[in-house]
């Protein structure tokens, strides 16, 4: 087992285990410091951000929305975790030279060409469907996958099976099988 990957990253088992320690520390810190236990997650923040962006143009609609009311629109702990993920990735990639301006990911480019337009349409449509699904399921690979499975929640295991199972089928249809480059 190598400590560094070919692309100069950390061994994924080691980085993952450290993320596990971080998750434990985070549960402990929120419990002790904030007086309530918060688990890592990300998708609820997109609901809050969407509401905050809609507010200037549709204040009443946002205020009357049942889902927005239940979600409590504010810049909370998880919102700042998501902001932090951006900054942490920036910090890490700046210091190890892996920061790259990328317009279209290589796998996508091989299948659909280097055009940014097609990538934008795919990502936006995929993003809409994925977020509707994540909110319906009440979690994403962070909330259901990491936090749910760590707690041995039944919903975490079932959600991850559906996420990955469907992902495998759709990825095969969209990008071809594993032997298809």
């Amino acid at each position, binding site marked *: 087992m190598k400590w560094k990957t070919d692309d100069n*990253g950390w061994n*994924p088992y*080691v*980085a*993952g285990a450290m*993320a596990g320690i*971080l*998750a*434990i520390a985070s549960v402990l810190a929120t419990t002790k410091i*904030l007086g309530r236990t918060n*688990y*890592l997650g*990300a*998708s609820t923040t*997109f*609901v809050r951000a*969407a509401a905050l*962006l809609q507010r200037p143009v549709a204040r009443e609609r946002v205020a009357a929305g*049942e889902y*927005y009311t239940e979600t409590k629109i504010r810049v*909370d*702990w*998880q919102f*700042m*975790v*998501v*902001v932090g*993920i*951006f*900054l*942490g*990735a*920036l*910090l*890490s*990639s700046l210091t190890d030279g892996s920061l*790259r301006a*990328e317009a279209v*990911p290589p*796998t996508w480019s091989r299948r659909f060409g280097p055009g*940014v337009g097609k990538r934008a349409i795919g*990502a936006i449509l*995929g*993003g809409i*469907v*994925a*977020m*509707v*699904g994540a909110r319906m399921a009440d979690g994403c*690979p962070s909330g*259901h996958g990491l936090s749910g499975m*760590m707690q*041995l*929640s039944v919903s975490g295991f079932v*959600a991850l099976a*559906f996420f*990955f199972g469907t*992902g495998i089928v*759709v990825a095969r249809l*969209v990008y071809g099988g594993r032997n298809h480059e």
Partner: protein
Amino acid sequence: MNEQILGLLTGVAFGFLLQKGRVLRFDKQVAAMRLKDMTILKFMLAAILVGTVGLHLLAHFDVMAFKHKPMNLGAVGLGGILFGAGWAVMGFCPGTSVGALGEGRWHAVFAIVGMLVGAAVYAELYPFFKRTVLAWKDFGPIGLPETLSLSAWLVIALFWAICLALFAWFEKKRL
């Protein structure tokens, strides 16, 4: 320390590790779904294996209580299918999209825009989903050990054994 600062520090550490593990990349996410490169699954399962032991120790000593998300069949089933389909095309999940932007992969902006629109769409459709999909069958917030009538530590031991076997297979197949 206030809530926002604690969240920010936690996020910076999380984003740093996600980037070091190289799991933020579109290509890594799609490669896992194409069963070509299991980097993201290695990262995720390693985090879960370590985290589950720590969290169960904290719960055992009553430091905190678990917060299971409800096992709502329609929600997790249909929501999981929609998420998986969108994830494959988009190539990011919510957390990794912002991290990918942080490491310069600026096309992640499109995924983020799509997910913000998706969140607004869900908010609009929520009253309808509440009457339909979300109302089908809810088993509530349940944990695997109670459901299987097994001790949590036994379930954790089995989970470790299965994941270690999976890791050995990943390494053997160079995935």
